């Protein structure tokens, strides 16, 4: 049967920001399928020009309410590289906890609030509040745990207060760290239960495969750490780069349908985020997370983008145990009173950090007074947009025989799987001052 389909989902729900899904089929042939980003551009670049080094991270954390700490960290790392500032070991450990909290909070929000309703066949988490109240309470508790982990270091997850270039304006007490560590340990069984829960509904995750290039941080030489805070850029095609070379990977381009830019490297598109990290670095996961992966049937490389959510869940197990260890390390060392002053200078530098949705790059040039001359920022969702479109082009012809409602749902579920952060992706920082 030659079918005509015209789907236009205006403002896909349960994603961060505004995007539309379009599918036009004529006589059984897909003419157009795309995710269009219709979010209002915010032009962050104009906000940074001429601004002092200490104002930058204040402004850029406002790019995103979900990954505010990740933006602040990528920003701080770029500033430190540019200004020639070295953070202490204590500062790096504390930053890793901040990032851990944010990844936990964002992953749990995505797994429970944005994706789970599709797996349970409901429109949102709200009806689950009466039918599966225990799950909703667990969801809220785990999401809050992530926030609490960040809060103990930075005061407030949206938007971090204490985190600055070189150090912090205030340090946590040992007892506050112990409290949050205890909370994490107490919640580990809830996460393991969640692994079992998702394993029980895994057959409802659509089966679709498209091999692509996977880009994430990889371990720095000699390290066996699953990298979030520190690393080199790693492609599944076998190439590695230093963070300062990020433009060789991102190659941004502009399309008229989208207020966000698109990216590609060696293939037509590439993927970043939890599944890319899992595919590139799963051998570095902690044993507990490897066990969760086995339970969930995940063996790298996984080529089904709907499994991004499952990779996130595996990462939460890793992060919970890892953060307990980092806190132990900090407590053993004791909280040190350090000097966090520094002198600005002229320079250029890059920062690359793994935030919930993938690798995030900030790149800055400062003048001799420490005022911003040039800033560039490449967001994970921007890097994923072309990959989503390529997935759409493969998926759409395969599902045309389904009812229109199901086609629409499968396309929307694919968008949701990527956990796009659309506000972020349109909040470009590309500044090329003449």
């Amino acid at each position, binding site marked *: 049967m030659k079918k005509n389909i015209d789907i236009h989902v205006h403002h896909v729900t349960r994603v961060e920001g505004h995007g539309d899904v379009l599918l036009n089929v004529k006589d059984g042939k897909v003419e157009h399928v795309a995710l269009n980003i219709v979010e209002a551009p915010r032009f962050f670049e104009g906000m940074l020009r001429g601004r002092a080094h200490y104002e930058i991270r204040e402004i850029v954390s406002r790019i995103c309410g979900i990954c505010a700490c990740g933006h602040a960290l990528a920003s701080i790392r770029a500033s430190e590289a540019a200004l020639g500032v070295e953070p202490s070991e204590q500062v790096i450990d504390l930053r890793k906890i901040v990032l851990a909290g944010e990844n936990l909070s964002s992953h749990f929000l995505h797994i429970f609030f944005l994706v789970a309703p599709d797996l349970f066949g409901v429109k949102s988490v709200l009806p689950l509040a009466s039918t599966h109240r225990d799950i909703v309470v667990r969801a809220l508790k785990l999401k809050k745990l992530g926030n609490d982990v960040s809060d103990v270091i930075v005061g407030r997850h949206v938007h971090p207060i204490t985190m600055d270039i070189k150090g912090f304006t205030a340090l946590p007490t040992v007892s506050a760290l112990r409290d949050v560590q205890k909370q994490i340990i107490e919640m580990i069984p809830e996460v393991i239960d969640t692994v079992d829960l998702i394993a029980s509904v895994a057959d409802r995750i659509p089966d679709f495969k498209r091999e692509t290039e996977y880009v994430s941080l990889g371990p720095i030489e000699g390290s066996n750490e699953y990298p979030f805070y520190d690393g080199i850029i790693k492609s599944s095609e076998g190439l590695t780069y230093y963070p300062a070379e990020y433009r060789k990977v991102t190659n941004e381009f502009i399309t008229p349908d989208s207020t966000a830019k698109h990216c590609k490297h060696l293939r037509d598109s590439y993927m970043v985020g939890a599944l890319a990290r899992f595919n590139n670095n799963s051998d570095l996961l902690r044993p507990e997370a490897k066990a969760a992966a086995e339970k969930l049937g995940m063996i790298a490389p996984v080529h089904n983008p709907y499994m991004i959510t499952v990779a996130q869940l595996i990462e939460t197990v890793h992060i919970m145990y890892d953060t307990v260890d980092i806190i132990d390390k900090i407590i053993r060392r004791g909280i040190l009173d350090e000097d966090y002053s520094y002198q600005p200078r002229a320079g250029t530098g890059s920062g690359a950090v793994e935030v919930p949705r993938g690798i995030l790059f900030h790149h800055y040039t400062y003048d001799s007074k420490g005022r911003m001359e040039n800033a560039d920022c490449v967001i994970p969702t921007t890097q994923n947009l072309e990959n989503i479109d390529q997935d759409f082009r493969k998926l759409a012809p395969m599902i045309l025989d389904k009812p229109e409602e199901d086609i629409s749902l499968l396309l929307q579920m694919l968008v949701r799987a990527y956990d796009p952060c659309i506000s972020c992706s349109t909040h470009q920082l*590309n500044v090329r001052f003449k």
Partner: protein
Amino acid sequence: MSKPRIAFFDFASCEGCQLEAINFVEEFLVLLGHVDIVQFREAITEAEWDIDVSFVEGSITREQDIPRLKEIRENSKVVIALGACACTGGVNAIKNTRPLEDVRADVYGDKKDWFPTFPTRPIDQVVKVDGYIYGCPIDRNDFLKNVQLILQGKKTLRHNDPVCVECRLAEIECLLTLGKPCMGPITRGGCGAIDPSYGHPCTGCRGLVDDPNENAAMDVLAEHGLTVEDIRSYMTIFNSFRPEDIQ
């Protein structure tokens, strides 16, 4: 009596204020028992009109935002500006301080005409607003207090005492004396002086108090060793919007 029907909407913003609204467990579940959430795109798929209270996050930055905001106003008994972007324009208004053509060209180069934009404005420059919940992000306790007031049909808290008042009450060491560019003297309170409580200067995210004495504040900052350039820059992180920008 039927439960009030509430909705969340967003324009140019980071959506962090909506997230803060669901960042407390017990209170959120209690709130759910007292209201029906009828629109909340970030969290739910259902979408219904006929709304009692709309919380609107984000600033208005382009022509196509205006009819959408007016539609929300027409379908809502009460409209509340949620967070700095909606209340004062927030960081989005920094772009108003440079020629728009330059700003667009910086991001999109020769493709700049594909992405129209206009000077950033708070939502009350487009529609009538019944109340304000300030801050970047909103303060959780302040949000809950205001929601109680709104659901009782009362006005939101104006917070016309500057952050300094709360800072003094909390006996926090004055950051101005440490040479830090603190906006506390002219910024609306209600946040419990959260930034200074962590040793961080106030950034002015809640907007300026009514009739702020900006010149006096600049004199105070200058006395503590900051340059006029530094002070002007810091003052405009959250407070760039001027009504004349859109005339």
